[in-house]
């Protein structure tokens, strides 16, 4: 997909919110859009997602798109499941596939028990899960997330991180805005920075390392734990990305370490005693201790 001299303003006499943005979105890329409040991040995402037509320039080669808005207030006369079924059909899915995907995503995001409840009665976080589920139903080639993590519980945030990973691994592109600087750090392939005048530039390309600029890809984080029970160790071993978990040490690629850390910190009776990084290629311990985040 390509943005060609894209500009956007909300009326002929209004100021340009986004102007002259010419950037490519390659398959398999994970793009973080950055900028201060009011610099047009949401507007740029809406134009990229095809929700809003650009006022100038054009967007070409957009694949099938899933869009998650900043807030999803519900307020519709459907149950969560019925809404997802309708949206699945709009996404082009049919009958049984639509139903299966709707149930699958409600389940993955931890909303299965609320499937039959009217959207009007759902909490803000639960509505957000429905909004995320609808965007993922059709395994879109472009996933656009506008602060989609806000209001989610920890498990759902992890599920969304994993879903983003799946989209990228499938060759899809993902664009997102989030206030948490550490969000998906290590997996991001490109950062677009909006400068306040509506212009966007690539701030960094290639695999962006967390911290000191070393490639995060070949770093392994070793998390040492005390008080880990065998059942919990088994749960960790089943986590996506976890390389090994024996005794009190979990080995996980740097890209997935935050999620594992969040999980173990949430467990009662489990203490993190040390976190350090080693080179995956050599197995050598790096000098110094890396912070968890």
């Amino acid at each position, binding site marked *: 997909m390509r943005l060609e001299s894209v500009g956007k303003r909300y009326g002929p006499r209004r100021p340009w919110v986004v102007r002259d943005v010419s950037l490519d979105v390659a398959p398999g890329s994970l793009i973080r859009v950055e900028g201060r409040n009011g610099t047009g991040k949401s507007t740029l995402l809406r134009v990229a997602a095809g929700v809003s037509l650009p006022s100038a320039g054009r967007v070409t080669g957009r694949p099938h798109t899933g869009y998650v808005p900043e807030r*999803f207030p519900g307020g519709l006369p459907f149950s969560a499941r019925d809404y997802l079924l309708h949206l699945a*059909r*709009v996404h082009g899915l049919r009958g049984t596939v639509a139903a299966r995907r709707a149930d699958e995503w409600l389940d993955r995001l931890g909303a299965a028990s609320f499937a039959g409840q009217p959207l009007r009665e759902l909490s803000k976080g639960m509505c957000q899960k429905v909004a995320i589920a*609808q965007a993922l139903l059709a395994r879109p080639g*472009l996933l656009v997330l506008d602060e989609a993590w806000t209001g989610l519980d920890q498990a759902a945030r992890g599920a969304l991180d994993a879903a983003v990973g799946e989209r990228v691994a499938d060759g899809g592109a993902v664009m997102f805005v989030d206030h948490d600087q550490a969000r998906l750090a290590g997996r991001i392939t490109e950062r677009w920075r909006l400068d306040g005048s509506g212009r966007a530039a690539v701030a960094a390309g290639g695999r962006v390392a967390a911290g000191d600029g070393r490639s995060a890809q070949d770093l392994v984080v070793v998390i040492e734990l005390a008080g880990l029970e065998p059942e919990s160790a088994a749960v960790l071993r089943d986590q996506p990305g976890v390389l090994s978990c024996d005794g009190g040490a979990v080995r996980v690629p740097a890209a997935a370490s935050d999620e594992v850390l969040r999980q173990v910190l949430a467990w009662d009776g489990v203490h993190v005693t040390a976190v350090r990084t080693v080179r995956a290629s050599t197995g050598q311990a790096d000098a110094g201790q890396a912070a968890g985040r």
Partner: protein
Amino acid sequence: MTALLRYQAALLLRSNRWIFPLVAYGALIAVGAAGSTPLAEGLDWSAAMLLPVSAFLTRSMLTAEPDASWACVAAAAGPAAGPVRAQLATLVTALGGGVVLGAVGAVFTLLTSEPAGPRPRSGVTGAITATLHYPGVFLAGLATAVVCLLTGAAIGALCNTPLLRHSGAAALATLAVVILALAAGVSPANAALRHGGDVASAARWPGGLPLIGAAALLAVTWTASVLAAARRERSLP
């Protein structure tokens, strides 16, 4: 497009936004049918009352969906022209609701009015007799209803979000333009109801010009509404 229409139709039915137009239209037609009205006059009345109903049905569909879920639907309906299709589906669904109400109104009028001929009879037999003996009267009444339906849908699109976003102003504007459209001579609906002065004949054809005018009005206002929805933001209802 089918999935979009299905979604919008479900939204209309489940949101109960059809109840007010149905009750209002039923009441207006019942007022018109009180006493014994000739079929041609009854059909004119039910056609005229379809205009405000169609306008307010369009208004309620345009305000039925919060901006955020509309955006999700617009993206899902893509990848190209998603918002255009999403907005068009909203307008078409409202028009479809108007068609259903108009059809119900026409059948009701047929059942309760006196046939336009020398043998007054009412009820189902009367309706069948009227349709068989005076198809011209019935068809002319339907054509008038179509003019009013299209004009009403055009007014609904013109006077509401995203073209007119202030909710209170939009409601008032819709009401004012509906009254104008029924009363002012330039309106296709008014022209259709005047039958070009040919009130004497039993079959009151609206004429071709009002039909063309109403269709043109609909095309222009719908295009404006669709483009506004796709280019600007839709306001939060």
